[in-house]
C-alpha cells in the first residue's frame, strides 16, 4: 500500500468520524467524540476506516434513540435540560408529551383532509363574507369549472358556467356556444342573465332570437311564452322607474300590459299550454352531470349563481319565478273579465274565464319545483275557485261545488308545509348553522394558536424557567390544551356538517330525475343561517373584518406588553 493510499484511508476515516461527531445528538455526543479520538491510535488505514464506519452505525442508532425519547418529552423541552425535570409540575413549561401533541395535530390535519369537513369550512367562510357578486365568480368553486370549459369546450360544462358566471359577455357567449354544440340545451336560454348589475335578476331581457328558438324547441310549454310576456313587463318596469315610480305598481303594470297585444297573446297561449316546465329538473341534472364528470366536490356551487350575491337561490331554486308576476297580472285580467261577464249575465263566459286560471294552476302544480311557484299556483287556484264555486252553486252544479270545496280546503292546508320542508323559515336550522360557523372559527383559532406556540417554544427551547416570561408560559398552556380542543372542533364540525354532506351526496347519486330540491336547498343553506336574535348580532359584530380587527388589536397589545416587559427587565438589570 502506497503512502498516498495510507494517507487517504486515514483522511477518509477522520472525515467520517469528525462528521459523525458533529451531527451526533447533543446528549450522547461525547461517545461520538470518543470514537473520533481513538483514530489517533490506529495505524492501519483500513482498520481506521472500519472503526469510523462503526461510529457512523452508532450515530444512526443514537439518532433513532434520540428521536424515540424526544417524543416522550413535551414540545420545546430539550433532553437533559433543567426544564425536563420541571415538565410534570411547572405550568410554565409544557407538560403534554410530544407524541400526544403530534398525534392530536396529525388527527386534526387528517380531519381537515376529509372533503365534507372542508366543505363545511368553505361554507362558513362564505357565510362570514359580505355577499358580493365579484367574490364568488373568482372563487375556488367556479374557477375549476371555467378551467374545464376552456380545456374541453364541453357543451354541458359551458351551459353550467353560462348560468353561474358573473361576466355578462361570457354568459352570452357560452350559452350560444353550448346550444350550438348541443341543441338539447336550448332551455338554458330561459335562465341566462344577459345584463349585469343589481336588477339583472329581476329584469332579464332576453334576445328575440333566443325566445324564438326556445318557443320552437319547446312549443307546448307555457314557460317560453311567459318569458315573451316578461319582456313587455320589463319595458313597463323600465318606464315606471324612469317616471319616478309614479302610481301603484299593480294598477300601472296591469294598465300597461292589458294594452299590449303581444303580452296578451303570450299570456293567452301560456294559460292554455298543455305543460308548465321551468326546467328545474333539467338544471339540476346539468349541475349533477357536470359536477360528477369533472369530480367537483364543492357543494357551494349548488347555491351559486343567478343572483347578485354569492349565495342565493342558486342552481336549486333559480326557477324563473319573476315571469310569474305576469301570471298574477293576467289572472287579475281574466277575473275582471269574468266579473264583467257575470254582471252582464253571461254566466257561461264567466265560468270559462274563472276556470282558466284554475286549469293553468293544475298544470303548473305538476312541475313546480320551488315554493315560489307553489305559492303562485296555490294562490291562483284559490282565487279562481272562490269565484267559480258560488257561480256553479248558482247554476245548480251541486256535485262539482262539493268537489271544488274539498279541493279549496286542501289548498288552504298545504300553504305552509311543516317541519324541514319549511325552508322559507330561515332560522329553522339556525343553531346548527351557528355551530358550524363557530366550529370553523374554533379550528382556525386553535390551529393557529398551536402552530404559533410550537414555533415560540421551539425558538426559546433553551430558555431557563426563570427567564421564561408570560409569553412562553402562555405558549406552554396553549400547546398543552389547544391540540385537544382542535381535535374536538374538527370532530364537531364533521358531526355537524355530515348530515348536510350526506344529503348532498344522496341527491348527487340518485339515478333518476329529481323534482323536489327543497330539502337539499334547506340543508345546504344551513351554514348561512343564524338563530333568531343572534343573526343581527352575529352579522353586525362578528363578521370577517371584525375578526381581523380583534386579531390585529390583540397581537399589537401582546407585542406592546412584551416590549414593555423587556425594557423593564433591561432597566432592572442595569440598575
Amino acid at each position, binding site marked *: 500500500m502506497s503512502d498516498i493510499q495510507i494517507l487517504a484511508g486515514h483522511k477518509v476515516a477522520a472525515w467520517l468520524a469528525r462528521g459523525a461527531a458533529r451531527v451526533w445528538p447533543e446528549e*450522547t455526543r*461525547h*461517545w461520538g*467524540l*470518543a*470514537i*473520533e*479520538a*481513538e483514530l*489517533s*491510535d*490506529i495505524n492501519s488505514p483500513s482498520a481506521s476506516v*472500519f*472503526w469510523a*464506519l*462503526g*461510529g457512523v*452505525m*452508532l450515530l444512526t*442508532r443514537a439518532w433513532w434513540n434520540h428521536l424515540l425519547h424526544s417524543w416522550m418529552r413535551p414540545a420545546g423541552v430539550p433532553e437533559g435540560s433543567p426544564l425536563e425535570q420541571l415538565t410534570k409540575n411547572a405550568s410554565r413549561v409544557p407538560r403534554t408529551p410530544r407524541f400526544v401533541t403530534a398525534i392530536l395535530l396529525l388527527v386534526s390535519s387528517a380531519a381537515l383532509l376529509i372533503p365534507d369537513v372542508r366543505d363545511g369550512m368553505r361554507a362558513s367562510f362564505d357565510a362570514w363574507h359580505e355577499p358580493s357578486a365579484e367574490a364568488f365568480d373568482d372563487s375556488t368553486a367556479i374557477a375549476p369549472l371555467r378551467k374545464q370549459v376552456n380545456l374541453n369546450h364541453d357543451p354541458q360544462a359551458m351551459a353550467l358556467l353560462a348560468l353561474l358566471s358573473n361576466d355578462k359577455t361570457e354568459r352570452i357567449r357560452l350559452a350560444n356556444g353550448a346550444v350550438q354544440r348541443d341543441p338539447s340545451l336550448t332551455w338554458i336560454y330561459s335562465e341566462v342573465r344577459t345584463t349585469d348589475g343589481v336588477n339583472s335578476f329581476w329584469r332579464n331581457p332576453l334576445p328575440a332570437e333566443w325566445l324564438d328558438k326556445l318557443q320552437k324547441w319547446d312549443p307546448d310549454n307555457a314557460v317560453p311564452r311567459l318569458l315573451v310576456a316578461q319582456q313587455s313587463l320589463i319595458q313597463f318596469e323600465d318606464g315606471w322607474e324612469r317616471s319616478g315610480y309614479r302610481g301603484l305598481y299593480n294598477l300601472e303594470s296591469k294598465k300597461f300590459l292589458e294594452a299590449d297585444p303581444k303580452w296578451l297573446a303570450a299570456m293567452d297561449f301560456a294559460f292554455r299550454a298543455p305543460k308548465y316546465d321551468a326546467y328545474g329538473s333539467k338544471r339540476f341534472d346539468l349541475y349533477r352531470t357536470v359536477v360528477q364528470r369533472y369530480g367537483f366536490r364543492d357543494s357551494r356551487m349548488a347555491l351559486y349563481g343567478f343572483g347578485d350575491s354569492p349565495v342565493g337561490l342558486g342552481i336549486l331554486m333559480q326557477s324563473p319565478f319573476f315571469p310569474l308576476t305576469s301570471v298574477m297580472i293576467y289572472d287579475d285580467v281574466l277575473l275582471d273579465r269574468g266579473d264583467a261577464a257575470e254582471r252582464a249575465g253571461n254566466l257561461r263566459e264567466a265560468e270559462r274565464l274563472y276556470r282558466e286560471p284554475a286549469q293553468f294552476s293544475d298544470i303548473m302544480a305538476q312541475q313546480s319545483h320551488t315554493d315560489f311557484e307553489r305559492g303562485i299556483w296555490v294562490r291562483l287556484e284559490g282565487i279562481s275557485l272562490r269565484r267559480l264555486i258560488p257561480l256553479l252553486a248558482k247554476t245548480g252544479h251541486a256535485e262539482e261545488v262539493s268537489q271544488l270545496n274539498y279541493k279549496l280546503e286542501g289548498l288552504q292546508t298545504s300553504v305552509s308545509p311543516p317541519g324541514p320542508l319549511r325552508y322559507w323559515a330561515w332560522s329553522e336550522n339556525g343553531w346548527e348553522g351557528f355551530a358550524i360557523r363557530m366550529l370553523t372559527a374554533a379550528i382556525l383559532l386553535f390551529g393557529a394558536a398551536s402552530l404559533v406556540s410550537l414555533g415560540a417554544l421551539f425558538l426559546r427551547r433553551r430558555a431557563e424557567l426563570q427567564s421564561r416570561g408570560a409569553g412562553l408560559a402562555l405558549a406552554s398552556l396553549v400547546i398543552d390544551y389547544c391540540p385537544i380542543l382542535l381535535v374536538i372542533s374538527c370532530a364537531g364540525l364533521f358531526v355537524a356538517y355530515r348530515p348536510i354532506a350526506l344529503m348532498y351526496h344522496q341527491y348527487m347519486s340518485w339515478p333518476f330525475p329529481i323534482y323536489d330540491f327543497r330539502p337539499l336547498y334547506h340543508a345546504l343553506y344551513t351554514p348561512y343561517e343564524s338563530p333568531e336574535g343572534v343573526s343581527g348580532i352575529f352579522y353586525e359584530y362578528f363578521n370577517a373584518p371584525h375578526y381581523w380587527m380583534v386579531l390585529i388589536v390583540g397581537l399589537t397589545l401582546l407585542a406592546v406588553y412584551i416590549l414593555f416587559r423587556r425594557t423593564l427587565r433591561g432597566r432592572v438589570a442595569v440598575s
Partner: protein
Amino acid sequence: MGLHLRISAATLRVLDALLEHPAQWRHGYSMSQQTEIPSGTLYPILMRLEKLAWLETRWEQAEKSGRPPRHLYRLTGPGRAMAVEELRDARVKRMWKPIYSGV
C-alpha cells in the same frame, strides 16, 4: 421499565476484558483489539454499562499536542461485583469460558 443488561457473548467478552486489570483505565480501541469486537458493537455495550453505572468513564489528559484526549473506561466497584457474577453464571451455564479475567 428499568434498564437491564442484555448478556450477549460480546458483552461477556467485554466484561471479561475489563476484569483482567480492573483498576486500570482502558481505551476503546485497545479493548476492541483485545476482544476483536468492532467499534459499532463495542460502544453500544459500553454505553449500556455506563447507564447501569457498572462502568465509569473519563477523558484523559492530552499527552501529545495535536492529539485529541481519549475516552477511558473501567468498571466501578458495584460493576466489578456484578460482572464477576454474570461471568460465573455464564460459566456455570456453559455459555462462556473466561479468557482474560480467570473468573
